[in-house]
Every structure is written in C-alpha cells, then in structure tokens.
C-alpha cells in the first residue's frame, strides 16, 4: 500500500489482490499520463494485419478513459 495516498501498490513479494489491483488502476494511469500523455500504442508492427482484421482497422480495443477507471 502506498502509505501517503492509500493506493494499493503492486508488491515485490507476495501478490496483489484483484480488488486492490482494480483500485489502483486510475492512479497508475494518472501517473503514466504525467510523463507520457495520450495513447502511446505503437502505430504499426509486424502483427498489424491480424490485429486490424480483428479490431476493425485498429490495433486493439480502445482504452478505457481515465475517469472511468
């Protein structure tokens, strides 16, 4: 647990519960977006053909907006 904010931390030893992992999602997204804003998914890769076929021209499902995490 992050002592300052009570945001569950993914620990080195042991495990994190599903509930705590879910609870920390928004905080992790916010931290990530402080240093790399927006979607940083690669624009292309060797898997493009199969990905775009499955995801209607995209490389994956759209990310859930931060406010909904």
């Amino acid at each position: 647990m992050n002592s300052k904010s009570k945001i569950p931390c993914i620990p080195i030893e042991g495990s994190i519960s599903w509930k705590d992992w879910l609870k920390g999602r928004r905080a992790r997204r916010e931290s990530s977006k402080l240093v790399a804003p927006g979607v940083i998914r690669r624009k292309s890769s060797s898997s493009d053909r199969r990905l775009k076929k499955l995801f209607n021209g995209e490389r994956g499902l759209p990310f859930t907006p931060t406010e909904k995490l």
Partner: protein
Amino acid sequence: MDVKKIRKALADISAEQDPTLKSAKLASLCSALWAEHGVQLVVVGGSAIEILTEGAYASGDLDMCHVTAATLPIRQRRKIMGLVDAKGGPRNWQVAGMYLDLLGPAESFARTPYRRIEAPYGSFLLMKPEDLLVERVMMSFYSGKNQTAYDCAKILIAVALRHEIEMNWDEVRRLANLPEYCNLSECLKLVREVADELKIQNPLHPD
C-alpha cells in the same frame, strides 16, 4: 478447472471491452489451465507493462512465456487451448476476441520475483519491472531513438517513483551494469529526468 467454469470465464473474457482487463483475465484463465499441466506462464513485454502501468500502450495481443523449463508438446498445447475455443496455434492463438502469443521460455536477469496478481480465474505472473525497465531503456536508444520504447520506460519509472509498483532500484542498477544491457548511464539519465519532472527524489541519486 471444470468445463462449466471454463465456459463461464470464456464468456466473461469474450464480452470484456476494456483491453487491459481482457488481457489480465485471459492471462488468469490461461495460467490456471497451463498450471494444471505443470507449466507456469508469465505475461511479458508490453502486455506486462500495460498491466503494471495502465499506460495506454499495449495492442490487442497478449504475450506470454513459460517460466518452467520445458513447455508442452504441440498436441497437448492444442488440447489445452481447445478448451477455450482458441483458433490457430501452436504459438499464436486467437481466443476470446484477442490474440495470445506463447513465445517460449521467459528471459529474465533480475533476482527479484515475478510479480503476482490474484485474478478471478487464478493468480498469474508478470515479468519483473526491473527487467522491463532496463530492457525498454535499451530499446529506447538502440539504433536511434525509439519514442514508443522511451515513453514506455518513462511510464514504468513514473509509476514506480509514485510507489504504485514496487521497484528494486538496486537491482535496476545491477541489471543495467550487466554486459547484456550495459546501459547504466542511459538508465540513470532517464530516471533523473522523470524524477525531476515529477519533483520526486531520485532513488538512484538519493542526494
């Protein structure tokens, strides 16, 4: 795991529209099924970074490796993946509305443990953030700057500096000094950059 439970899990994962939840749940289900055959899987690469950071990076494929020494014969792999209606194989599968790539043995140099999440269909392992970080820093500067790898390294550092994942910084330093990576100066520079950006004390330069 009995067939009824597998069908229920599969329906849940297929309906899931959040890409990170979908990956995590699929990793949970596949880890449980392979573990029944003595093979321990681990989520690696960008898929692991996404689950650790929520960085909006991963694409629609989940990369997993096996931690245990040997994998299973192709026939047995097909049998297990058949339980979840997977198409394709023997290494790349389409399952529950996404792709799963089973890439072979996991490569890790860190002495820290794999991270573990207790997920709905069983716990699953994630590649060690120390390995992921040093590797992404290397990819960031390998034959010219790679902006995506650079951003990935930055989000891992940010989430660790804000104590949302626990990182062993001494281990990061040790790994970066290994001949396999030999990128300590780049690691130090990037951690300093992110620490300065976030106005957080730099764990690799405590002064």
